[in-house]
């Protein structure tokens, strides 16, 4: 126990007591992360290996199912369970990276707009407005279709859809912080802007940023799976939840499990992250409730 600092442990325990949903969320998120990281160990078959002798096999609890393919197989005889486990890698990589990049861009933009203000700040906020005016999925679709669908391009496109959320919140909070006495005091003491921002403003922004980040990861997972569903996700043969779902559409009546399980995977993951995000928000920053 000595490895965990006492205050952190106390905080976690308090979170658990106050918000059991957050604990459930943490467990779900932990399981999904484990699936993504340990996919080669957890998968029972190769996710892209086709086996035309076991096409459209049902899950093991249905007649004709077997434990060899616990969640059944798809129209090419690929193991649904193994593809789900590997699919977690894509969903998590894209969403975590995009939400992180979006945070970096958005926080810098928000700090400039809030702390510095001026013409540059005004321009930044107009770009935020512009970005918010687009139906994001349409913009993402158009850009992915034109740039080509790859992991890198998807991360870039998803970043475009998330940075302005941080920018708006960070600007608002920075505007308020700038006028607070303790910031005025260090400025009077002669501190440079860079020092004020990194030592006094940023630390106060970490909690809301973390909360937004969590909720944005959930949103990006939903959007990435929608793009993938429309055929503009990471290209085959890489298994993604969205494409699995789309591929199963043609076999809905005979092999519904191909579409049902990826949908459940997306929903449970997003639900888990939302539980966790809500719990974090209640714990870290009750004031943020109204803003996000």
């Amino acid at each position, binding site marked *: 126990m000595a490895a965990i600092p006492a205050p952190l442990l106390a905080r976690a325990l308090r979170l658990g007591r106050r918000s059991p949903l957050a604990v459930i969320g943490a467990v779900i998120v932990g399981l999904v992360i484990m699936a993504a990281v340990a996919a080669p160990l957890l998968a029972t078959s190769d996710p892209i290996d086709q086996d035309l002798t076991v096409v459209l096999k049902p899950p093991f609890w249905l007649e004709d199912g077997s434990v060899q393919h616990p969640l059944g197989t798809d129209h090419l005889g690929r193991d649904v369970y193994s593809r789900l486990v590997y699919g977690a890698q894509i969903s998590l990589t894209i969403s975590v990276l995009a939400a992180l990049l979006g945070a970096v861009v958005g926080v810098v933009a928000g700090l400039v707009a809030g702390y510095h203000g001026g013409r540059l700040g005004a321009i930044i906020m*107009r770009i935020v407005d512009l970005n918010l005016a687009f139906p994001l999925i*349409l913009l993402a679709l*158009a850009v992915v279709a034109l740039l080509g669908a790859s992991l890198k391009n998807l991360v870039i496109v998803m970043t475009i859809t998330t940075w302005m959320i941080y920018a708006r919140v960070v600007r608002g909070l920075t505007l308020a912080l700038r006028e607070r006495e303790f910031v005025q005091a260090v400025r009077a003491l002669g501190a440079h802007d860079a020092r004020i921002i990194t030592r006094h403003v940023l630390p106060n922004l970490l909690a809301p940023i973390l909360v937004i980040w969590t909720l944005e990861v959930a949103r990006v997972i939903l959007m990435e799976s929608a793009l993938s569903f429309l055929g503009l996700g990471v290209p085959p043969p890489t298994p993604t939840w969205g494409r699995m779902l789309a591929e199963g559409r043609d076999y*809905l009546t005979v092999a519904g499990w191909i579409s049902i399980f990826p949908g459940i995977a997306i929903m449970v993951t997003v639900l888990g992250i939302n539980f966790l995000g809500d719990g974090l928000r209640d714990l870290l920053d009750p004031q943020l409730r109204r803003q996000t």
Partner: protein
Amino acid sequence: MRAYIAARLATAVLVVLGVSIVSFCLTFLSGDPAEIMLPPGATAEHIAKFRAEWGYDDPLLVQYGRFLSRAVQGDFGVSLRHGQSSLPLIAARLPATLQLTVTAMLLAIVLAVPLGVLAATHRGGPLDLLAMGVALLGQSVPNFWLAIMMILLFAVSWGLLPTSGRGGPAHVVMPAVAIAINLMALLTRLVRTTMIEVLAEDYVRTGRGKGLREVMVLTRHALPNALIPLVTVVGLQFGYILGGAVVIETVFTWPGVGLFTIQAILNRDYPVVQASVFILATGVVLINLIVDLLYVWLDPRIRLG
């Protein structure tokens, strides 16, 4: 207040200009338009002639100016696939999309308001838990998956509703529910939060104190005030709803702008993509503008201040 409206209008114009720049840029993301438009194996002279004819050799700023002046006149170029002007093609599909999105918005509001009020008035009780559970699930479900599951259940298994296309009211049900679900979840939580705040206000206590029935307190005094933030959020979410329509129209082959745009994107029919991105984004800007002005009108503190 005049100054506020003027400033708000100026911002909207700026954003629409930005929208036009982004739409314009979409042409160049894909590389050379000549390569897309001309058949493969076109000769170098052929390409050069094409570029000169269509003005692709001019400086970018000149090209943008031309794009903008044409766009203002409703001319976004000819669809590469349909051989017709893009704007009428999109305009013809707009009513279908509006029918779907407006139905979805109304559905979301009609479900979310009572659910949110019930949750707020029964705070901490089983009804509250149920409402919040529904909201959390609704927020997390991928709408296209819900759409497919509804098709499987209500269309394929039970044969109650048509699987796809646009026709009578029965055709609207499943796509509208699929688009509404995420917004409904968001609004339920919003109504609950604002309602809890409003119920703690003095005027609510006064209403109860003077012996008003609880129904009167809720519907005449608390609810109207709790609904003001709802107006803003619904307006702000219009872009999101349109995005949902793009995906859901594809699932149900609903003949709207969303399906048409997806097909244009997949076919690299960029005059249509440009026109559609421009029109939809401008629509969102206009809706947001209207909502902001409506907000001023709804809230006497801003209207009279």
